């Protein structure tokens, strides 16, 4: 197998304007924060990205705050117990961000459809809600066997997925360390897959949680999820998350990004 271990700076050019970018992990757990910070320090920053993530949190708020994102596809955008995501909330209220409203099922079915090379997956989700009003592209379908009206969630295509993992080998096989979220699915749907890893070894013996087959590049990035958690290596750094929120609310987002 091919050795995919490269420096983080080598993968930054893989992110290009107008792509759909997916971030692994969940809200404030195992997020590729170091990657996002490096991307924001790249000149020029990417523009007009569509950000796809199951639950968007700190890393997503940074990408949005950095002006890289034109469209957001997520079922939740916030910082859980730490409150609203400051840059996202501000941008939406100023009408500067287009939200492609999602729920857990629309993302899960959309990715299942994509990985199975199908156009859609049917579901009972959304029936009776207002979600259709803001997602006119989502159609219903009649179950040919029962006659029941179902929602036909369209396949979701992803250009680049960035996933932070606990441990990877040079070929991209990886251990997530818990909280699997949707990362295995993302790795199989995305055209380009970048792993940042707390630790890199020559060869993992298995069983592994992600296969290296679809992985494009592996970057060694200790503390790469900080201040989000990387279980069991470290818990989330709540004081730092509060410091980020305070910096954003004080209009010092850019200073915060370039601090280190």
């Amino acid at each position, binding site marked *: 197998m091919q050795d995919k271990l490269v420096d983080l700076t080598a993968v930054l050019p893989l992110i290009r304007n107008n792509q759909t970018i997916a971030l692994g992990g969940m809200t404030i757990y195992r997020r590729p924060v170091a990657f996002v910070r490096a991307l924001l320090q790249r000149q020029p920053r990417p523009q007009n990205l569509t950000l796809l993530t199951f639950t968007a949190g700190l890393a997503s708020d940074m990408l949005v705050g950095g002006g890289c994102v034109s469209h957001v596809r997520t079922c939740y955008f916030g910082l859980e117990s730490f409150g609203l995501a400051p840059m996202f909330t501000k941008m939406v209220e100023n009408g500067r961000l287009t939200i492609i409203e999602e729920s857990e099922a629309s993302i899960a079915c959309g990715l299942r459809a994509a990985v199975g090379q199908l156009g859609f997956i049917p579901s009972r989700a959304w029936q009776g809600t207002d979600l259709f009003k803001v997602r006119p592209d989502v159609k219903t379908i009649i179950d040919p066997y029962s006659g029941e009206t179902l929602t036909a969630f369209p396949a979701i295509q992803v250009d680049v997925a960035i996933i932070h993992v606990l441990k990877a080998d040079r070929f991209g096989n990886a251990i997530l360390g818990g909280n699997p*979220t949707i990362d295995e699915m993302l790795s199989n749907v995305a055209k380009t897959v970048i792993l940042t890893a707390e630790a890199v070894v020559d060869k993992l013996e298995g069983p592994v949680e992600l296969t290296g087959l679809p992985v494009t590049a592996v970057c060694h990035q200790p503390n790469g999820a900080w201040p989000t958690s990387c279980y069991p290596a470290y818990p989330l750094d709540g004081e730092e998350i509060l410091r980020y929120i305070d910096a954003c609310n004080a209009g010092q987002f850019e200073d915060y990004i370039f601090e280190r």
Partner: protein
Amino acid sequence: MYTIDELICVCISRQIEDGELVAQGMSTPLVAAGYLLAKLTHAPNLTFISAIGQTFCQEFAPLGLATVENLWLRNGLFTINFITGVCDFLPRYQPKEFFRPGQVDPLGNFNNVFMGGSYAQPRLRLPGSAGIADVTVYEEKVCLYVPRHGRHTFVPQLDFRSGVGHVPERTRGSGPRYLVSDLGQFDFGGENGRLRLTTHHPGTTPQRIQAKTGFPLALAPDLHETKPPTAEELRLLREKIDPLGIRTLETLRGAHRKAKLRQILAAEKGILGRG
């Protein structure tokens, strides 16, 4: 003496039956504490499934904030992932779950997407519908909780319907069955499934609750005062389940909430340092 967060936890706990499967979303420590209280009292055979970690779990552990994953990842009996959870396990097992609405209407429809203004440019963007727009369509055991009862939450007309209540177009599931707030407990036993006050918490009255609700409330015929927590329930909550007081984060706002967050993080760091 007890605080309102403790009463809400106790009310949630008393809605749990032994042997049930219960689900927990993100940032819902009142619900987690309520489930754990049920586990340590009348429902020892409870199984939890959590958004964080996507694990099935049958063991007890105290609540954490920076270490919130420990409860689910250290004790997880069985791990799925979110795709399998959403597409397969939730429809198959239909756990009981408590949701916190941004707005709720008289029929138990609710909104976690935006409030005020328009969808394209809202006055307040909320985090989003997460799994609410999915499971409220078909589940039988949806419950709601509102830590700060007021007219901004209990509205005659939603700005957006992301959770489905007792509406004629429903073909499956039941709509929410129960709601607890910091003022009282409710079911949806009013006409056509309208919200109905069943108990008022000690220290408040049905009149005050009505005044803080943005639409006329139905009243249960046997409307009475909520049974307060027992000394044992309070001891379990304070000493075993949530000694850091994480549950109070859902009832606090603004500067008080931020101060409490910092206090909890410092206390938790002390525990981690020792342990």
